[in-house]
């Protein structure tokens, strides 16, 4: 089951690091970095049920909000 409770010890550190990996990159490079990150994390998780839940949560939140992504 997908854990959506707080699980990252230092959330601000993580967020800073996440933005940091995109520093000085073009949009195309950033897109590639994000895709690589998703694939690396997905493999680490492995469990297809958790992955499916995460993918659905990611998509549903965007579809439910008419303003999201505008």
């Amino acid at each position, binding site marked *: 089951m997908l854990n959506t409770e707080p699980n990252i010890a230092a959330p601000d550190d993580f967020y800073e690091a996440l933005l940091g990996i995109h520093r000085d990159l073009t949009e195309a490079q950033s*897109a*590639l970095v994000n*895709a*690589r990150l*998703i*694939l*690396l994390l997905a*493999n680490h998780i492995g469990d297809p049920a958790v992955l499916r839940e995460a993918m659905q949560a990611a998509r549903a939140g965007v579809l439910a909000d008419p303003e999201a992504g505008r």
Partner: protein
Amino acid sequence: MTAMAAYANPVYPYRRPPELDGAPRHRGVVVIGAGPVGLATAIDLAQRGIPVLVLDDDNTVSVGSRAICYAKRTLEIFDRLGCGETVASKGVGWSVGKVYHGDRLAYQFDLLPESGHRRPAFVNLQQYYLEEYLVERASALAALELRWEHRVVGVAHDDEAVSLRVSTPDGDYELTCDWLVVCDGARSPVRHLLGLDTEGQVFHDRFLIADIRMTSDFPAERRFWFDPPFHPNQSVLLHRQPDNVWRVDFQLGCDADPEVEKQPERILPRLAAMLGPDAEFEIEWASVYTFQCRRMQKFRQGRVFFAGDAAHLVSPFGARGANSGVQDADNLVWKLDLVLRGLAPARLLDTYDDERVAAADDNIRNSTRSTDFITPKSAVSRVFRDAVLGLARDHPFARKLVNSGRLSVPTVLVDSTLNTPDVEPFAGAMVPGAPAADAPVSGAQGHWLLDHLGGTFVLLLFGSGVTASEVRVLAGGDVPCRVVTIGGEAPGALADAAGLVAARYDGTPGACYLFRPDQHVCARWRSFNPLRVRAAIARACARADS
């Protein structure tokens, strides 16, 4: 299509049909199309002693090489049809594939990493050679009549029979038959005559296929490039065929003009960029194509069956076209045989539809996934594709995601109603529905396990301990079933020389496997019980008493 033939197509003689001179006009089984699927169907029927008439609208084999990769399972079927050795010895065997991204090797796979199989993972062979060998085999069978330049121009069917109108250079004639097998290819004129369609997806990317003659020391392996320096932003596939013929397949994109791209002055620079300025080669055949992934809703329509490309279409990535067509024939013929002999009810024929539709869906799913990877349809799918290829250089997990075509493996018919579910635990891959795995044996009738399976039902017994009278009870059934013993002291028993039969089948002493006439497992037990075997055979024949 550009043909600069070094291969000379044979011309098969047309003969005036006797029906025009008053011969009887009813047949048992008619097959339409003398391609690999129609010929495999007809050979299998005729080997069983069932008279079969094959009608083909042309007078030769495939023009250009077209299908080239024949999978292990298909070769094993050709072995049963009496031409496996001819195909395998002329063909180029391979099992290794290499995938490049840019100029770097991203991933390498071996489709048959273990020994102890008669046939390799794949054999590459021009389709014209395959068809020649099948025609040769067909001509040796008394029950098989092959008619060239006989075009079916009308077809109708009801509960009683199928009626055909056939056009020949000497005029038209009418014919009826009990069963019709339609194997007339992707455009299937007969399917159109019956007003039947296929459903699915059309892909818009264009590809250039070129068969070239070239002396080269490239090894016999499948090579696939994503975005190579010699053909940027597109993919390229290379296969070796016999006679120093090489298949090169260039992705051209959606905007390519097929008329322009098939001209030699466009093709030659592409090849020169790939093979180097000094390479010497000539183009044997070239064509620009698009492809589709689609199938008919039902492969059986009463007394009419559809097989091969007439029934289902896939992209070429994965070599799932001709291979699945031959496997259709393999699935259909034993069922038709039992029904024609009155040993099984006609509803057994519905399982051809069930099983081969499931296989077609399996092939279409795999082929569509490969296509989506090779030709990304959106910016985001392109980003993920490139991310996978980039990660694959350094990270083993990503190599599993690289999809340059998942190559044809036979579908395991796990959901078939003809299977008897396991009641005892077994390890390994030989579940009910699986095609039999080969293994070396020593026996008078052949040195491979598959030589001893197929044609009829076969019960494979591990070890001795079963009395002759028990086996006689089994043999007393009306559906033919041979008994093959492996290991033990019984007279005529095969020796499991390398121990691989026991290993691949989890074959403990006393265990037994029941194989269908197409060599698929349909039941297995830890000990022999003739009543259970009889019940499993009845079930595999779709008999009511099962």
